[in-house]
Structure formats: C-alpha cells, structure tokens
C-alpha cells in the first residue's frame, strides 16, 4: 500500500532470497514486535498468524450473532499499527529486499474473511492509504460436511450422530489461495482457515514459482513456515526458564524472520537489539512443537519429513535451516468442526497457611454437593481443582501442602442460570464455608466444542476476491 497509488515494483529477489517476518503467533499476540519488524526488518512479507481451532469456532459463534463480525478482534488494531509504517517505508524508498514494499498475509479473517477484508480496506482509507486487499475464501465447508456426514475423529461416529448443534466447519486450505492473491498484486492478503505454515509458503510460491508437486522444496518451505508460525516461540518465548534456559529481554521479545532461498533453505534471525534469543536450541524445540509424527507432518500442501531437517548456528541469534524432505500432499483436508458447547461457570477462592489444602478441599466438597443437590447440576459435569497443590498435573504427582491453595470449581451447565450458580456457590463460601477463604472471583460463559474430520480435497475450492481501498 502506498500514500498515492499502488507501488508494484518488479518482483525479483535480492541475493536470491525472500524475507518473511513473523508478526503474530496467535490471536492475542503482542503488536509492538510486528511494528519493529515492519520498521526495521526490510521485510518482503509480514505474516500474522492469528487463528487457532478454538478461535475459529468462537469466531463462528460471533458471526452467527452478528453477520458482519466473526473476524479477529485485533485485526483493525494490527493494521492501524503496521500499515502506516509500511506505507511510509514504501514512499521513502526503504523498500524490502525484493525491491517492492512489504506485503501482509494474515488469517485474521477467521470466520468472516470478506468482512475482515472490508475492515482492512476501511482502515487503509482512514489512514489515507491506498491498498489492494486480497481475500481468500473457500474454507467454510459447512454445507459439504452436512451432505457428506463424515466420521468425527474424537467420537468415531458420523457427524449426524453428534447431539450438540454444529455451527461451523472450516477446512484447512493450503498455500495456493494466498499465492493467487499475491499474483493479483494484493498488498494485504486476508484469509480464514489456512494451514499455519501455508501462510508463509504462499509468498514463497508466488516469488519462486515452485511446482505444486515439488515435494522436497514445498516441504522445505513448510519447515520455514512451521518454525515462524508461532512468532516469539522461536526467539525464546515458551522456552525461557530462569534455571535452565535463561532468555534475555523477554519483555521486549523480538519476533523472528527468515531469509528463504529458491531451494527452500533459510537463515532464521531477529532484529539486532531486540529481546530474546534465537539458537539451535530454540529452533529445535519449535521444529518439534505440536508435531506428533516428525517423519510425516501433514499439511494441505505436502507431507513434510522433519527428520531430515538440519539446524546450524550461523552467527549471533541466527540459525541456518536445511534439509527439507517430503512426499505427496494428502488427498483429504482436515476440517475443524465447531459445536455449541453449552454454558460453563466457574468460581475461585484462596486459602493460605496451616491446613490450607484441607480447607480448600473441604470447600470444594461443599460446592460440589450444593451444585448437585440445590442447583441440579450433573455430578460428572463438575471439576474441582486445587491450584498450587498440583492441579496442573491432574493427579499425576502427589499433592503437596503449600503455603496457599486456590480452589477452582468449574462446571458445564444447562444454561446461563446454572452456570452462574457455580461462581455464586464459591463466593458464598465467604460466610458459609471454611475459615479464611479470600479473593473469590466468578465468571460464566457460553462455550464452543471443537472436533475434527476429513473431507476430500476436490470438494473444497478456494477463491480470491480483491478489494480496493
């Protein structure tokens, strides 16, 4: 986007590489690291990954309530933060490495990519900028799964057998829609459910023209996307441990970028002076993050073999990644199904000092008894956690008797009234429960349930709509 007209310089590469920057690793991610990358990173592409399985289902519920909503609530804030910086860079001539301004790719469209695209265009107009916004749609496969009635992974039963109300079905699209939007000179590409690494692979397909059956190269590009997709998790976030893995400057953690070559090999780095660190250790952890089969990482674009990946230090806060290998893409696409999950209520209260654990346990028993006998909740719908005494380990480690324990009761409920009762019963422990209970808090909300299934890829088609601002 530029202040006057669209700047579309020749698409070539500087030193044969394309620079991809990670602007966000989840829907609620920090914004300032992306601004720093936009300002100083000389990026070709800035990618915001803002969509999880739960996020897309929750967005679908918001869209049901408001047909013009259902996209990432931070979309406008992110765009307002980075668009002026990128436009100023384009006007001032501090262009990206490929000789044109930095372009944005994001899956912030969530359940409503077209509305998100319109909002992005509106933000650009408000800022006095012109921009081509490419919107990728086609991931919404609700009609397809209703017709196909596929087996749901988690239940092993046909979709139609699920008692909960189905509200959404989003197929994981590959990189092709992003590539086509960039081919159409989009300055900003907004998608819904696209596989996270494909947000990064799309620009590489656009720049390098990789064949859609060049499996080793597609796998190499997918490895780069996988390493970048969680942003700060590559530079010391979700890694840091003050005892074993100290990381400097986490409060100003720098997000990573990659200089990717035409063979898919890349050099990963971050801005000098930013917080965090980028080493073979941080990269190895991220390479294996959420990867249940390292020899066959399934994406819509390729089956990538991460066992062939090699990581080598290449200077301060820089790592070279090579050795992508892979095979044909799967014939089916994974689909995230969203169901109305009913209501959930929760309440918390603290106990400290002598017999803190015993008092918290007693308090939990009281609340459980009353939720069943007074409010009619099902006993197996109630969960009691003793936070501070090992609740996170779910009974796997022996409970300790710590200085303080926080009771948390949560329960699935039939409606708002029952859900409210959970926090109410915890709060009423103040005057009716064990001694010294303090700091009660409560909340209740409607929830979504997420499950998965497959659909044949030939039943799913992505399309690109370009909006002008």
């Amino acid at each position: 986007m530029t202040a006057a007209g669209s700047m579309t310089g020749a698409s070539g590469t500087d030193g044969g590489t394309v620079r991809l920057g990670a602007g966000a690793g989840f829907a609620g991610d920090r914004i300032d690291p992306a601004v720093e990358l936009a300002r100083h990173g000389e990026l070709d592409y800035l990618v915001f990954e803002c969509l999880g399985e739960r996020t897309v289902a929750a967005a679908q519920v918001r869209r049901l309530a408001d047909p013009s909503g259902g996209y990432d609530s931070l979309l406008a804030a992110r765009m307002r933060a980075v668009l002026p910086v990128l436009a100023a860079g384009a006007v001032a001539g501090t262009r990206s490495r490929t000789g044109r301004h930095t372009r944005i790719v994001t899956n912030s469209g969530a359940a409503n990519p077209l509305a998100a695209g319109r909002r992005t265009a509106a933000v650009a107009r408000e800022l006095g900028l012109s921009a081509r916004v490419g919107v990728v749609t086609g991931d919404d496969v609700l009609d397809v799964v209703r017709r196909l009635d596929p087996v749901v992974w988690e239940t092993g039963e046909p979709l139609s057998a699920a008692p909960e109300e189905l509200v959404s079905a989003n197929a994981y699209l590959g990189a092709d829609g992003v590539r086509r939007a960039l081919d159409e000179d989009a300055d900003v590409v907004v998608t819904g459910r696209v596989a996270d690494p494909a947000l990064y692979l799309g620009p590489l397909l656009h720049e390098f023209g990789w064949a859609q059956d060049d499996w080793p190269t597609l796998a190499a590009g997918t490895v780069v996307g996988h390493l970048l997709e969680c942003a700060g998790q590559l530079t010391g976030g979700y890694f840091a441990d003050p005892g074993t893995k100290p990381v400097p400057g986490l409060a100003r953690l720098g997000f990573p970028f990659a200089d990717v070559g035409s063979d898919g090999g890349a050099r990963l780095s971050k801005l000098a002076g930013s917080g965090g660190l980028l080493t073979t250790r941080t990269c190895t952890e991220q390479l294996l993050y959420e990867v249940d089969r390292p020899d066959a990482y399934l994406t819509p674009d390729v089956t990538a073999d991460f066992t062939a990946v090699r990581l080598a230090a290449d200077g301060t806060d820089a790592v070279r990644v090579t050795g992508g290998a892979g095979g044909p893409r799967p014939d089916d696409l994974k689909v995230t199904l969203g169901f109305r999950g009913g209501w959930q209520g929760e309440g918390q209260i603290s106990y400290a000092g002598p017999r803190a654990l015993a008092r918290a346990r007693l308090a939990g028993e009281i609340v459980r008894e009353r939720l069943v006998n007074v409010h009619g909740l099902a006993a197996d719908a109630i969960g009691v956690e003793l936070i501070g005494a090992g609740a996170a380990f779910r009974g796997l480690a022996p409970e300790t008797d710590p200085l303080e324990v926080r009771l948390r009761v949560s329960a699935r409920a039939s409606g708002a009234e029952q859900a409210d009762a959970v926090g109410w019963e915890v709060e009423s422990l103040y005057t009716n429960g064990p001694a010294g209970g303090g700091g009660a808090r409560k909340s209740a909300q409607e929830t979504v349930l997420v499950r998965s299934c497959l659909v044949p890829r030939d039943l799913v088609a992505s399309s690109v709509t370009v909006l002008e601002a």
Partner: protein
Amino acid sequence: MGGLPMGERAMGQPPMGRLLVDDLADVRAGDKGDTLILAVLPREAAHYVVLERTLTAQAVARHFGRPDDVTRTVLPHLPALVFRLPAILGGGVTGYPGLDGHGKTLGYHLLMFPVES
C-alpha cells in the same frame, strides 16, 4: 516430586545422585486435539543415550498413568525424542473443564521423571 523443592532442582544440584530428566534435558509440550506431544531435548548430546535408554514409550506411559498407547520417535541427529500421548488431555482445549486444556504445563511433569544413571 519426591519432596524435593523445585528451586533446588533448578540450581542443577541433584542430591544423592538421583537424577531427574530436568537435570539432563528440556521438554516442550504441544497439543493436537486430545493428544499431548512431548519433545525431549538433551542439553548435551552425550545425554541422549541415557535418555533414550530410560525414556521408553512404556516408561513415559506409566509416568502419565496411561495404558501402553504412547508412541516414541527417536531423532538422534537433532538430538531429540518425541512422545505422542493420545487421549490424555480430557477433551483438550475446548473439552477439558480444568484450567490447562492444552496440557502446556505437563511437559514439566516429564522433567520430574527419575533417570537411572
């Protein structure tokens, strides 16, 4: 936990020769639906052998109170071990009523696994 204060472990002072995975490796936890994925990363390449010998799929399954449904992938060149623990997260991020549906904290449970050295 064996009654050992966590701070003591963090200082890397294994008392009485009893090592934990925490003394030799890092663990990163990730989730896919109801499946927990744990990557074990030795801090020194020399630790890989003892970790590979000790952290069998069966031993990790026992540590997490699971039947023998845990699978292990060995990646000696990284080096790393990857464990896949299916159906352990109680419904995962949208199904588990507790706080940590992702199971992100559970990597540190594996760090408390005693290593026979």
